[in-house]
């Protein structure tokens, strides 16, 4: 089994409290199902929209990330799956796609290196 991080990128916040509630319930159902099957290592956390970016040799500190809304990472979860195909498969039920967002699926670390390093 390998650990993967899901990076949730970009979405449109629902227009009304009722729609927010429905959306929240959908996410909770989706993650609970994965979790009940033992595939969730960490439910993760949301990331607040603002922040700072430190970059370059001069360690310049700028406000950001001011990427386009659709590219901003809004949160993450850590998933356990046997391979990338399975991890991608699990992500297909994520409600983020209904709102034009995306899930970036990335394997964590390099388990083949073993304990020796």
């Amino acid at each position, binding site marked *: 089994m390998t650990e993967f991080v899901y990076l949730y990128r970009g979405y449109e*916040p*629902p*227009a*009304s*409290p*009722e*729609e*927010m*509630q429905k*959306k*929240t*319930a*959908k*996410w*909770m159902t989706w*993650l*609970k199902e994965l979790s009940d099957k033992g595939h969730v290592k960490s*439910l*993760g*956390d*949301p990331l607040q929209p603002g922040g700072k970016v430190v970059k370059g040799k001069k360690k310049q500190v700028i406000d950001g990330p001011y990427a386009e809304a659709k590219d901003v990472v*809004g*949160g993450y*979860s850590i998933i356990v799956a046997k391979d990338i195909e399975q991890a991608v498969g699990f992500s297909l039920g994520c409600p983020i796609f209904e709102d034009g967002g995306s899930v970036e699926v990335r394997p964590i670390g390099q388990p083949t290196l073993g304990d020796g390093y």
Partner: protein
Amino acid sequence: MDIEEHFFRHEFGRIVATLTRLFGVRNLALAEDVTQDAFCRAMETWKLRGLPKNPSAWLMAVAKNRALDILRRERTARVSEPALTRFLESEWTLVPTVEEAFSVYAVKDSQLRMMFSCCHPDLSEEAQIALILHILCGFSVKEIAQAFVSSHAAVEKRITRAKKILAESTQLFDLADTDFPSRLSSVLQALYLLFNEGYHGSSPEAAVRMELCQEAMLLMNLIIEQPALVTPQSYALAALMYLNAARLPTRLDGSGNLVSFFEQDRSLWNHTLVAEGQALLDLSAAGTELTKYHIEAAIASMHISAARVEDTDWQQIVSLYDMLMAIHPSPVIALNRAIAIAQLDGPERGLQEIRLIHDLHRLSSYPFYPATLGELELRRGNYPVAKAHFSTALSLARNPMERNFLQRRIDTCKES
């Protein structure tokens, strides 16, 4: 753990009212923004981590902290209700004042003040209702437009204009104000119309209609929970809502079709609501004023106390309609009175009464006017005439449920 139905919507209304109490009614937009922000945070967190132990307290805490940030940053009268400015400007009293505003009692008080503020005399009844639904019940413009079968643009315009008028007030309505009794009448009328829109309304969505009735009852409960605010007419309106709501489940059959009053399965009426409604009706029998709410609740109660349609005391119901016509004449009430007379003295008498209705032309686009003519002609055995009336009614039907219902009545005429 599942989220309670409409939890977000209801909490939204509670928090907007509370924040408006702190920021002042002219900063309604700020209160709405802060609330929206708290909900976005809740959604982002809960969708990943699941619900906290006490979702309501969680939301209130986020909103409260945001309010403290804003009040500390501004430290001016610009963002506070005039009566509270003094307390919000000093760090000594800021936190206790904000804490107090978020207490259970104060939140309800703010909701009531907001409800009374929404019924501003400069606003039309439609605007008052739209504002109540938007601010206190957390409905979006789109959802209100759906519920009232109006266009998005029309509802948006109505709400924007209404908010402007509301924001011009110096503060939320003071429940101790001398205007209280007249404002209470407007509030009750708005809740009455809101409930009726759900009960008889023209919206095609059964679910939406049920929600409007529920919202009206929740707001009504806020009023009758406050001993200082309760009048016999408030109890009467509450009784009317409970007694009608008890019959709501039988207005539609399993496939969502409208069921004629005479064919409803009375065993499915909600007996808890019946009992509460009757208790409220008893409480309303005080004072000297007899309102339309009293009489309409009494009519509902007469229907409820009959185990079968045949057991109905139509004589009594006709006299109640006579009283209603005396204090609040309207062609719809006259039509219902004629139906009761037809039950008592036969369809010919009913038809005769309908012909005597004073401003019959006002019913010209009301589908249940020709439908009633059809019903009475059907009972007289005049099938072709009945069918023609039902066809007229069908052409006026406002939603698929009404259309199906009337189509089935036309089919009955053909079979007979």
